[in-house]
């Protein structure tokens, strides 16, 4: 194993946001499944528990948290003073150039590829844009179906979001798309965890632990030089 050093690679804000998004997605999946097909009930007719109300309430709150978290993460990726990392996690030119190399690694055409500070080109060029697209679809279809009060105003969603219904081919289709996203995010989750297992099994560089601690083993030549700004160092 090449010479490696422990580097504080992840900011606690990013770690927190990651886990907020993970837990919120899990809650959204569970509550969404219940709304799709209610599979349990509580209380009696005489003493009812408003199960569906609470489940829907939770779904809406979590949806709001998800939107906020994704927006904050995007904002930080571009404008953070400490770690504006969109080049490391998004489809930057550097990533696009290195995509064939990374793909050929996963297709067993080659056995190693370059060191990447955060995500590799396959993830940053393919998975991340797809995931953002799916977030967008989830948010739009969700708002289109949501009728109620937000920002202290009762919304008439047909007036506000009628175009979403048109875009997705009608109201029922919009609902179906929102439900498909449950399966799609499940797929993305499975792929994400698998790729990280694959990577950590090979590198033993504390990737999983770094999602809590932020510290990870990095080849010495890529370790940041003390005092240099993050951006300088990467170039």
């Amino acid at each position, binding site marked *: 194993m090449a010479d490696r050093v422990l580097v504080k690679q992840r900011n606690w804000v990013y770690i927190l946001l990651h886990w907020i998004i993970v837990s919120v997605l899990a809650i959204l999946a569970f509550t969404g499944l219940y709304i799709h097909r209610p599979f349990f009930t509580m209380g009696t007719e005489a003493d009812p528990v408003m199960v569906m109300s609470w489940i829907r309430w939770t779904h809406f709150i979590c949806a709001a948290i998800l939107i906020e978290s994704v927006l904050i993460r995007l904002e930080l990726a571009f404008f953070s003073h400490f770690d504006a990392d969109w080049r490391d996690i998004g489809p930057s030119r550097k990533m696009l150039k290195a995509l064939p190399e990374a793909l050929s690694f996963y297709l067993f055409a080659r056995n190693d590829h370059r060191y990447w500070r955060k995500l590799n080109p396959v*993830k940053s060029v393919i998975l991340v844009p797809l995931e953002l697209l799916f977030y967008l679809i989830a948010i739009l279809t969700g708002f289109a179906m949501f009728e109620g009060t937000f920002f202290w105003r009762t919304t008439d969603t047909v007036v506000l979001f009628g175009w979403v219904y048109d875009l997705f081919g009608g109201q*029922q289709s919009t609902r179906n798309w929102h439900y498909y996203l449950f399966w799609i995010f499940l797929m993305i989750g499975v792929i994400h965890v698998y790729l990280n297992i694959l990577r950590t099994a090979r590198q033993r560089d504390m990737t999983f632990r770094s999602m809590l601690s932020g510290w990870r083993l990095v080849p010495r030549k890529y370790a940041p030089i003390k005092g240099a700004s993050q951006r300088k160092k990467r170039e």
Partner: protein
Amino acid sequence: MQLDISRRDFLKLCGGTAAMLGLSQAWVPQIARALEQAAERPPVIWLAFQGCSGCLESLAKAAYPDIATIVLDVISLNYVDVLMAPSGKRAEKSLEDTVAAGGYITIVEGAVATGIPEAMTIAGKTSEEIVKEVTAGGAATVCVGTCSSYGGVQAMRPNPTGAKGVGEVIGEDKVINVPGCPANPDTMVSTIVSYLLFGKAPELDSRGRPTFAFSQKIHDHCERRAHFDSGHYVEEYGSEEETKGYCLYKMGCKGPETHSPCPLTLWNSKQNWCIGCGNGCIGCMEPDFWDEFAGFYDTLPDTPIPGFVGVKTSADYVGSTLVTATVAGIGIHAIASAAKGRFKEADDAGEGSDD
């Protein structure tokens, strides 16, 4: 204007209309004045195209005011081929005269046949010609029923006659849609009164429906909503849950998707409505409900798969297939990776890394 109803009943009508339009009771005198001052009662042309005449039937069931009051006193129904006494050339003449005089309200029931124009002709003219000719000079066009609003059941795939809503033919901004299968009499009357009162179309949503009636969903005012909220659902017809009047959500009720004032206005002289008598809503007020919401007894009906014409399948099936395929793909990749030794710690991975 001489009304066949008592002053008291007339004011009740005005009060009911004010409530429907979401106006305060302070508006009642103004509504009364609008109806009274329509001294020459507004001429109305009722065009019936591809449809079942159910909307006219529904209007005939209007309780308050009854059909006689509406036809004889509130409006001047100059042309309605289903109800009118004259026939043939004399009937057509009254249409021509009304069109020539102008300032009339056109009510359209039934879809316009555009694909096979001969499928719908009156007096030798196709429905498209008639609708374009008549609506061009009218003051307002009200489409009653889902057929004239959005095409209706005859527009169901594959739509052999090319049935279209009136809005699609003459322009969506020129019509007021009062959908429903049939349209609700109260909503029809309120829309017309609203037009008489304000001299312009009421506020419409993006589907061309008056927001005073169609801004909220059936679900919002459903009498079974408490059962929905507390998780009490009918699992099958004939069960104990059904006799208790539990929520019909799992029986495919489309109340949560349907914009309509049904639970408030009710039907058949305010006697009952679909969910009240134990059947889930089928969403007849929504565009494309005949394609989109069928089967009516499934929570989330099967949807067509893009690219595969005629193939419909459930989201559950597609979703679980996708996830199974993903897991299988990962399994194969994992086996290949294991064969290549990629799960072992790399001794010379060097810079190699695949976060």
